[in-house]
């Protein structure tokens, strides 16, 4: 190792860590945006389109993964950040989990030719709508990180973000309620369905619910930045 590293003075200021996080969240969001089309294809029993959409989700998930790894590699311990480095690393990995969950759903639907039970359709739609809403709220929250940096993670921006965080919380609560209803409905019709499919329907409902849980985690993580 050289006695003095060849780091010039301007190396002092590194790129903002929030930009890649926002970039990553945008990719995660486009991943989630493909879930309603995925279910549309499923309703139409168009297996080709289902696997097509699932493939797209997978590509986006890989892209998000790559971005996450580069981000992690570019976060040496020597960085002095306005927020805790560990919180920042956890934030991006939380975001990444959302894309992972989307990919999991896509996988199940490609491997198994699932038929949507008529009784479940309406509730599934409601669940999908809720999921889209909470993820776009979470994305909006992440998009505010720039502004937060400008005001030093306090002041007026803080009120705005706190409101966004509580909105995500409320959405998560709503989705929980929809999930309960969906599971109850599924239980009431499960005798008429193929048992293995029923197992997987429970799993899919759980996975959709997990997305909103993960969004709530994101909100909690962001709260850590603010409370410092």
């Amino acid at each position: 190792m050289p006695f003095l590293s060849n780091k010039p003075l301007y190396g002092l200021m590194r790129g903002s860590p929030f930009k890649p996080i926002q970039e990553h969240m945008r990719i995660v969001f486009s991943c989630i945006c493909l879930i309603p089309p995925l279910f549309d294809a499923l309703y139409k029993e168009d297996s080709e389109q289902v696997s097509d959409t699932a493939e797209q989700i997978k590509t986006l998930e890989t892209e998000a993964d790559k971005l996450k790894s580069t981000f992690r590699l570019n976060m040496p311990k020597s960085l002095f950040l306005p927020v805790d480095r560990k919180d920042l690393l956890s934030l991006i990995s939380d975001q990444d989990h959302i894309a992972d969950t989307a990919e999991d759903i896509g996988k199940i639907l490609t491997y198994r030719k699932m038929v949507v039970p008529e009784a479940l359709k309406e509730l599934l739609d409601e669940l999908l709508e809720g999921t889209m809403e909470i993820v776009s709220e979470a994305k909006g929250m992440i998009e505010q990180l720039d502004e937060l940096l400008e005001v030093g993670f306090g002041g007026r921006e803080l009120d705005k973000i706190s409101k966004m965080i509580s909105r995500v919380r409320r959405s998560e609560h709503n989705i929980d309620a929809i999930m309960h209803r969906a599971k109850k409905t599924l239980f009431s019709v499960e005798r008429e369905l193929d048992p293995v499919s029923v197992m997987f329907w429970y799993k899919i409902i759980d996975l959709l619910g997990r997305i909103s849980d993960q969004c709530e985690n994101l909100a909690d993580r962001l709260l850590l930045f603010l409370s410092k």
Partner: protein
Amino acid sequence: MEIIAAYGTAMIILAVIFGLYMCWGIGANDLANAMGTSVGSGALTIKQAIGIAIIFEFLGALLAGGHVTKTIRKGIIDPTNITSNPEILVYGMLAALLATAIWLMIASTKGWPVSTTHSIIGALIGFAIVGIGPESVKWGKVGSVVISWIVSPMIGGTIAFILVMSTRKLIFNTDNPLKNAKKFAPGYIFLVGFTISLVTMFKGLKHLNINLTTAGSFGFAILFGLITSLIGYYFIRNIKEDLNANREFSYAGVEKVFTPMMLFTACSMAFAHGSNDVANGIGPLAAVYSIVSSGGEVMQNSPLPIWILLLGGTGIVLGLITLGYRVMLTVGEKITELTPSRGFCAQLAAATTVVIASRTGLPVSTTHILVGAILGVGLARGIGALDLRVILNIIISWVVTLPAGALMAMLFFFTLKGIFG
């Protein structure tokens, strides 16, 4: 004495060449680093930055540079033991100039963040130890200079921290940030003009035969501050909210107000640099000149000739035009993370600290103070990410620069002594 009489002109020519060489190095690297911040935040184009640097570098050297030169010339070493051999001091000063210039060159090519000031002090000490004797070094004075190297970045950082906090309190964390930005911007610009001119004038223009009373200095500084803030107001009065830009980033309009304000801090930065670093570069040159022109008098007290200050400024500007603009471009491209409002705070803090140090005659490092100011902004949670390894580099380069300058100066001292003696 005979040596001085025989080779006096040659010595002065050598000193001018070495001095120019060193100032060229300062312009190529140091000044480019300091001005790069303004280019990076989009406040200035390269051409504008060079133009500002030329004008204010000269002004800084001319108006506020004399004190530091005096410290370099007389404050570090005590030549009473060699009054009968004044040529020793001439060799020493020449050696110090050359050693610093070469060390700066090496450091620039390697990308090490070394300081001109530290190199020249190291070189002076090195020469004094072998040329006159360790007891001739005014260790107390050296100590206070070294302490100023630690304290000055801290002061710069503290001022920057306070400035960032004040912009938040007055502008960013309010209901209408843009309106408040336009309201308070002239105030901040006033601060730039007022502090810089006050510090410069306060009991300090004697070498130009301008004697101002304390009240007169204050009055003129207020006037100067008002003029700058009027010019600033002219630039920002027409800035309007751009709704498209705001959708992306809701403080875009506020940052736009700060962009022309960086023009003023860029001027003050160049001024501060001229007051401290030009003075560093020409200190030894001035010493050689005064010894030779007085026919070998070591202890005489002749005033600093203006042409030497101008020569230093010319060297720096040459360095900036030939090589420094490239450094400035690179720095500008890299430092895009510093928003205009933060760049403004950092530069204002750094310039103020440097000019204050110059007034007290302390040779400080402009670059290190700027780094301190940027750290201050970071501590106020104002910058995305700072790489502390660079700070470590600065500390290491500190430790290396003093002995490196000293050793090289010793080497050149004996070489010159051999050639002339």
